[in-house]
């Protein structure tokens, strides 16, 4: 299973990276002034390059961490790259590769199939709150009994158990500030529940 998954991801990664290379090549042949090149080429915000001194956004950070390779592949497969680099603000509960491995066998492979793109996107949006929630704020949410409204439309409970934050029963391992919000690392996939 593990090997299969890995292969799948490698393949999908190659697919994406090769796609990107193409984009780069096209760009190089395009002169600064495109007067001769009448065909406009449109790229999403995820392609905006990071420059020195600038803080990286959620996707740029996730891409640098090997433990998020499954998540990044899923984001790209679902076609939501541009959404996770948006001005937001976004708070992303980011499952590690090991979190995906905890899912029933075959789940990830199924989700990565093109026909399941909407379903995959829906699951991913359940990991994103369109708001700015540093840990301190999450503690406050827990104290006040406020739920987190997720991009999936679901409301997830927040609990503070002895100073540890749990979102929908899943504990936060680590938090990273990114330019467009926060990444909180979790080791379980937040599968949207059937009920609200």
């Amino acid at each position: 299973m593990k090997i299969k998954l890995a292969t799948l991801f490698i393949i999908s990664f190659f697919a994406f990276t090769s796609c990107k290379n193409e984009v780069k090549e096209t760009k190089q042949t395009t002169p600064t002034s495109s007067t001769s090149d009448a065909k406009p080429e449109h790229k999403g915000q995820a392609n905006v390059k990071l420059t020195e001194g600038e803080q990286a956004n959620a996707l740029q950070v996730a891409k640098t961490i090997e433990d998020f390779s499954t998540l990044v592949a899923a984001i790209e497969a679902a076609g939501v790259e541009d959404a996770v680099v948006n001005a937001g603000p976004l708070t992303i509960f980011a499952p590690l590769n090991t979190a995906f491995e905890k899912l029933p066998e075959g789940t990830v492979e199924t989700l990565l199939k093109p026909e399941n793109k909407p379903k995959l996107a829906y699951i991913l949006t359940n990991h994103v709150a369109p708001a700015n929630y540093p840990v301190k704020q999450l503690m406050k949410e827990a104290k006040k009994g406020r739920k987190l409204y997720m991009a999936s439309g679901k409301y997830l409970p927040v609990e503070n158990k002895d100073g540890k934050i749990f979102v929908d029963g899943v504990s936060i391992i680590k938090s990273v500030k990114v330019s467009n919000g926060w990444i909180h690392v979790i080791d379980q996939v937040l599968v949207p529940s059937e009920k609200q």
Partner: protein
Amino acid sequence: MKTILKSVLSLVALVSFLTSCAPTTGDKETNGTAKGAIAGNAAEKVYVAPGQHDSHYAFISGGFNGQLSVYGLPSGRLFRIIPVFSQDAEKGYGYSEETKPMLMTSHGFIPWGDLHHPDISQTNGSVDGRWVFVNENNTPRIARVSLETFETEEIIEIPNSAGNHSSSYVTENTEYVVAGTRFAVPYPQRDMPIEDMKGNFKGALSFLKVDPETGRMNIDFQVMMPGFDYDKAHPGRNKSSDWFFFTTYNTEEANTLLEVNASQNDKDYIAAVNWKKISEYVANGGGKRVPANYAHNVWDDNKHMAVTTMKKDVLIVEPKEVPGAIYFLPTAKSPHGCDVDPTGEYIIGSGKLAAAMTIHSFSKMMKAIENKDFDGDAYGIPIIKFEAVNYGVLEQPGLGPLHTEFDTRGNAYTTFFISSEVVKWNIKDLKVLDRHPVYYSVGHLMIPGGNSRTPDDKYLVAMNKITKDRYLPTGPEVCQSAQLFDISGDKLELLLDFPTVGEPHYAAGIAADKVAPKSKKIYKLDENIHPYATKNEADSRVVRKGNEVHIYMTMIRSHFSPDNIEGVRVGDKVFFHVTNLEQDYDVPHGISMIGANTSELLVMPGRTATFVWEPKQVGVWPFYCTDFCSALHQEMQGYVRVSPKGSNTPIKYTLDGDVPGVD
């Protein structure tokens, strides 16, 4: 008979119908087709597809609007308006407490200026894309605009000057930026009868030294010239790079009805000034420090504020102190443009009232100086014999020549105001090669790098004073315009009309790749040393000092901290010191407070800005973010409670019910 008459009449009618109809239709068709073909071709040349970049920047003067507009070429798209000498609500420039000192002068706070001539800094005679220098004509000042931040970094006032017009041109390695006075004024300034002008008024030519690292300017010296009008200037290039040339008019020294009285002399002069020689003279202790009073305003990107220093003296050099440094070259009637070709050999005076253009030769000038080929002097300054310095004249090139720029192929391009055209001519041969009408009444023109040693000669931008029917009408006041030409071929090809913001006196252009890679994206928060910066939400707070209330506020997507403030009273002076904590490109936040004189202060990532609010009414008043920053932008708001004057409501500030920084 009747029938015959009838048939004759009908025949005439038919013929006239045919003749009147046929040519019209034909005309329309030919015109239509011809225009269509040209338009199609031109459209391709200026089309920059969505998401693609222009190949050049153009910095176009905003004239009476006091700003500098940034356009892309060839598209003619407007990217930004950089406020320099005028307040600008969009950027809060001249409104925020930090930027107000930029507009300080010896006459006090001047919120409105007349910006004329942009010139890009140079290295080895080529535009280097570090700074743009611009002049203010009315209250004489020179400003330096950074091409990293696209903001005004420095403004220095020019004393002993009025109508700062022959400015702001840079030498080949940006050693100096030069400012000449258009109006002669009493020196020193004093209460005296106007009619006693002659001999008592002077024309100062100011040489501002530029620090090669920081770009900081200071007036190194002023040459106190005779009281003529110094209209335009151009530094020498290549072999003539030690010299600076200024056109003069009103050498009659008339003080009234100049349109007649300043046009009496058949020739005025181009003043040739060896700046290097004078620079050495002052470096060795030459010149005399005299009292003056002028403002020097400097912006600091780490403090995020400007500071005004009033300077109290200036170094004056009288022409007679440095023999061999200044000469007059007789030039056809009331010249405007003074332009030097890339080789530095040809000095072109555009006598705006003359039938011919005067082209002087630098090598002839040097020889004439050596041979003392003079024709008397003016106020002790030798006048070189016309024949001894003149290379030739371009006879009947057009009417009302104003300004000339150059290509790399030995050609010059001159604007003609009265005949509304741009004329291409070969300098060496003194031969007109092509002419193209402009719409209408062109002032200056610009070729990127076209006044430097290395023109980048694909495009030419003509800047027009009058547009009349060229655009949809907008009432009595219609836009001024720029027209883009392709000059890469033998013939000038008109590609595009685009409107400008204010009167485009002049422009400077440069290849985008010399500027774009250095463009700043954010201000680093850890380099912010603004005295009222709040670099952490936990440090946001409100402090009362007598009747002053200082709010140390932060902004981040998507809230202010604090966002509930109480204890402010009517009669207080409330300072909002707002720091944008974002470190992400293109995420500014704005702030507006009801009843404040500044609506919308836009704060860039990492920057601190301040506005003052003097609440006049009791109540609870909201403030909000004015820039659509995020998905929760509409939620970015807060309240200030204003109690009556003399009330005891204590200062209280919270975010989500808690005092920021207190767990």
